[in-house]
């Protein structure tokens, strides 16, 4: 038997680096997290801070020159009736889109988490992700064709002799309109469609973590299907649903393309920001508008936490 040395020979740089990281485990960690920390700290948080600071500047109404003194004047302007309307409209739309997404996404996510196996699971992921691979603009214009007065939906309704349903929907006060593509209903449908994957995926992930035995335990102890849903499945799915709602809610609040292509001429926060920083050149007010979604999200998360939405994490 050949004797081997207790320490194996050094094979070069790789071995020496491994030895260094073995002696100083924190060194590797630091090398790994420094670049993303710089990215997050400087570029991401930095631009966020710049935005915040901008919102505390003001604009001279006559000359259009930005006054770099810290003031709350811009925020005063933000709460004028016309601007407040925009905020409330956006908030209502985001809420409607989020609630609808949750209701529509739940059965899909539940099916995927509990019943889809093997190939069906792949089909599910493909089906959910596929819309995300195509251009957002193309999808929105495609929806315009579907929802337009001369579009597929109207055609189908005519063929099915169901135009009265469509007319009834469009006759609804405030959310209705001349056609689906020029109404809030249309905006809402397209928002729900576009953000749906962001609700389904986290919801499915959280439902997947609920073991079957927990549902069986609930039934075993006497719960009906409805009681199991309310007292076990929904509370355990809540972190996923909140994660999904953060996406649907904040993406709807910041979007300016969908309401521009599909919907009424009434503006949403995203459109207001777009116009204020562009044509109007009112960067401070644009910044103040941009702060609104951030504040609303923070309030929303605080309320969710208080309601125990993260207890199952």
């Amino acid at each position: 038997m050949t004797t081997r040395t207790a320490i194996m020979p050094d094979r070069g740089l790789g071995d020496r680096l491994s030895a260094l990281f073995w002696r100083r485990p924190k060194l590797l960690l630091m090398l790994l997290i420094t670049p993303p920390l710089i990215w997050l700290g400087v570029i991401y948080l930095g631009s966020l801070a710049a935005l915040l600071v901008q919102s505390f500047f003001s604009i001279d109404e006559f000359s259009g020159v930005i006054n770099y003194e810290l003031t709350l004047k811009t925020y005063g302007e933000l709460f004028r009736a016309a601007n407040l309307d925009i905020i409330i409209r956006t908030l209502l739309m985001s809420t409607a889109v989020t609630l609808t997404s949750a209701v529509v996404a739940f059965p899909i996510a539940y099916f995927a988490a509990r019943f889809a196996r093997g190939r069906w699971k792949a089909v599910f992921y493909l089906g959910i992700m596929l819309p995300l691979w195509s251009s957002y603009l193309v999808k929105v214009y495609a929806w315009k064709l579907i929802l337009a007065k001369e579009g597929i939906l109207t055609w189908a309704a005519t063929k099915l002799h169901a135009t009265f349903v469509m007319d009834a929907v469009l006759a609804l006060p405030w959310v209705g309109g001349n056609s689906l593509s020029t109404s809030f209903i249309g905006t809402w449908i397209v928002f729900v469609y576009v953000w749906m994957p962001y609700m389904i995926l986290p919801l499915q992930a959280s439902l997947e973590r609920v073991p079957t035995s927990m549902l069986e335990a609930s039934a075993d102890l006497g719960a009906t299907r409805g009681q199991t849903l309310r007292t076990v499945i929904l509370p355990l799915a809540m972190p996923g649903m909140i994660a999904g709602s953060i996406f649907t809610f904040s993406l709807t609040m910041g979007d300016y393309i969908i309401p521009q292509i599909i919907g009424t001429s009434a503006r949403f926060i995203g459109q207001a920001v777009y116009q204020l920083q562009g044509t109007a050149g009112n960067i401070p007010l644009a910044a103040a508008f941009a702060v609104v979604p951030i504040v609303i999200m923070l309030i929303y998360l605080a309320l969710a936490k208080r309601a125990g939405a993260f207890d199952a994490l």
Partner: protein
Amino acid sequence: MTSAVSFAKVSRHFGKVKAVDQVDLEIAEGSFFAMLGPSGSGKTTCLRLISGFEQPTAGHIRIFGEDVSQTPPNRRSVNTVFQDYALFPHLNVRDNVAYGPMVAGVPKAQRHAKAEEMLDLVKLGSYGDRKPGQLSGGQRQRVALARALINEPRVLLLDEPLGALDLKLREAMQDELKSLQKRLGITFVFVTHDQHEALSMADQLVIFSDGKIAQQGSPEDVYARPNSRFVADFVGSSNVLSPDLTRALGGPAKWASLRPEKTMLAAPAKAAVKGTVTAVRYLGAASRVVLDVGGNEIAALVPAGQDLPVQGAEAGIAFEPDALHVMEREV
């Protein structure tokens, strides 16, 4: 007296797999009943048939005389302690235990009082406010037990109840489950693959093999008088003797079993059958000596303090005449 649970020609097939096949079973009221078998033998499926999570593909199941074919799990007066305990992570221990009364619509104060009572029963009186995640495995199991017992089931099902616990805790829990069952007088049905657990806790046990019942009886019966090679081997790893060997040892030419602890070593000259020592394993209270007898492995349990042979030595086999058990079945 009607049985607590009775199976009449019950089958549960999954496609071609016959998980449970034509099983007839009577579980007497008030008994501590064990379903024993290797994994995949159908014991867990039987348990799930009683709780209602599986439905038989053929046959009838009765619980206290009532046919439960049309009864979903939530309407059976049967509760289960799950193998992974299945405690609800978002509820504290008290609300977990009070879950049954909660879905039954019992007011909060009442159900919490009842839950505290059950927690006292399993000696977790002061743990009501904790979350399941903050408990040890043994404590979680007690919570699962309290949660299953709060509905006052007529039959309590336990799926591998001690599987996840370490040895010491397992032994303590065995005693506790046994005394709890005596005190409450409920029929306990438990599934296990551990023959020691089944033998020490059950008053009646059934051994499953390939979806069928291999043998049923009291632990003493099954241990001392296995009816087949499978049972002899599975319950307490007995020496299974071929017909030739049985005859050489003075029995009829049939398959027989000889328990290692009933097998003694004798001087080679005095014994009718002898073999070569292939292994000596120290087990604490005894040592297990394995002999090779013409290609057959025979194990003998030698109590501590007696002389042990060395590996490679010759040794004879001796036993009390009634220790040799001849089996009826060939398999």
